[in-house]
């Protein structure tokens, strides 16, 4: 059964200030979405709510089929959110990549093999034993993608994945995101401007004045910019 994300009457406020009110959104498996909006409109908050990391003030986010674990009514095991500036744990690159897989209690040999594959996929093999904090911005972004890729998520939220990256790093990240899309992962990318990663998307959403609009094409998105 294909994964689906639905939003119904979602409202988020900080104090008395309403950030957004989204009546409906329907995302189907295999889609790629670009969430566009100016700084401060609530893109990150919206993505965190959809990923189950934050609570909305009212409304509902549902991801079906529902495989939620007993300890959380919001987090879904097939949904992963990546921060704009990925957090790296105080250990080496291998341990960072293996983190999620170890939680799923795979056997040691499998974990090791999959970590090697993930490192090769993200072109981080030469940095495997390096402390993760020593990585550059682009390498950290690739590490975060590898950390997600290894868990084979069905829905991936990428929060401004190319912010503060040079052109070469942007194209590497775009290539990795393209491969994830080819594998059938549903991806939502937030960005305040169009770039090589957002150009991979087949749906474009604009968060503006507290409302979410679907825009038909990239040129229409550009009109808002």
């Amino acid at each position, binding site marked *: 059964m294909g994964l689906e994300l639905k939003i119904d009457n979602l409202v988020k406020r900080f104090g008395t200030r309403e950030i957004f009110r989204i009546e409906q959104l329907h995302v189907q498996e295999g889609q790629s979405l670009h969430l566009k909006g100016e700084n401060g409109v609530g893109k990150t908050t919206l993505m*965190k709510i959809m*990923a189950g*990391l934050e609570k909305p003030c009212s409304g509902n986010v549902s991801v079906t089929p529902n495989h939620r674990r007993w*300890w*959380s009514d919001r987090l879904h095991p097939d949904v992963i*959110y990546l921060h704009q500036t*990925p957090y790296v*744990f*105080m250990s080496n690159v291998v341990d960072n990549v293996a*983190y999620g897989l170890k939680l799923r209690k795979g056997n040691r040999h499998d974990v090791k093999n999959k970590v090697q594959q993930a490192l090769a996929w993200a072109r981080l093999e030469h940095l495997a034993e390096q402390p993760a904090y020593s990585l550059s911005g682009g390498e950290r972004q690739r590490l975060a993608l590898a950390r997600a890729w290894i868990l084979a998520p069905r829905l991936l939220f990428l929060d401004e994945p190319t912010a503060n990256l040079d052109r070469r790093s942007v194209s590497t990240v775009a290539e990795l995101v393209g491969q994830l899309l080819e594998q059938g992962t549903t991806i939502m990318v937030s960005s305040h401007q169009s770039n090589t990663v957002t150009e991979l998307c087949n749906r474009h959403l604009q968060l503006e004045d507290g409302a979410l609009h679907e825009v038909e094409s990239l040129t229409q998105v550009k009109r808002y910019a």
Partner: protein
Amino acid sequence: MEMSLLDTCIDAIRLLFSGNTELWSIIWVSFCVSMTAILISAVPAIFVGFLLAMVDFPGRWMVIALFNALMAIPTVVVGLTLYLLLSRSGPFGELHLLFSQPAMVIGQVLLCFPVLVCMSHAAFQGIDRRAWETARTLGAHCGRAALTIACEARFSLLGAMLAGFSRIISEVGCSMMVGGNILGYTRNIPTAIALETSKGEFSQGVALGLVLLMLALVLNFTLASVRGKGQLI
């Protein structure tokens, strides 16, 4: 005849290496009591520190302020309170704990708990919120994510435990009041130093003081070597 400072120090070092059983029993009591107290309080205090850093609830700031205030409470006040509670006419008099090692442990737990809570709270507050979110989104349940956060804050938490241990290994007021300074049973380093000094026997006091100093140096150097050489800002 009055001894010079140098003579006292030489005599103290000689005493330390002479294998004096009385001296080493005092050191042993100190270690046993303080280690037991820190081991009892560490996990619950770190857990409280974690909750105060991560969970928002009404009156949270008041709890934080209360623990901060308790950090500064004089040890003798804790000793006095505990004395009143454990004395024969007190509510827990029937337990016959007064002037025993368990009473000293209880007192030291009360003394180091607020230190551990406040310092672990500060340690957890220093951890980026993204660490928690990353652990959660990668599939960690709350307990596992908390363990990950504790692991990220491990050096600060070790520092908190060290500060808690320093507070209790060197306190004299509470141990004197609820321990009673019984040789071979409740006489620890600080109470022995106080007693020997009042008797004019400075050598044993200095010897025990050197043990405390060595202990502080060893613990801090160990922590520094585990943590690394320290980063410049």
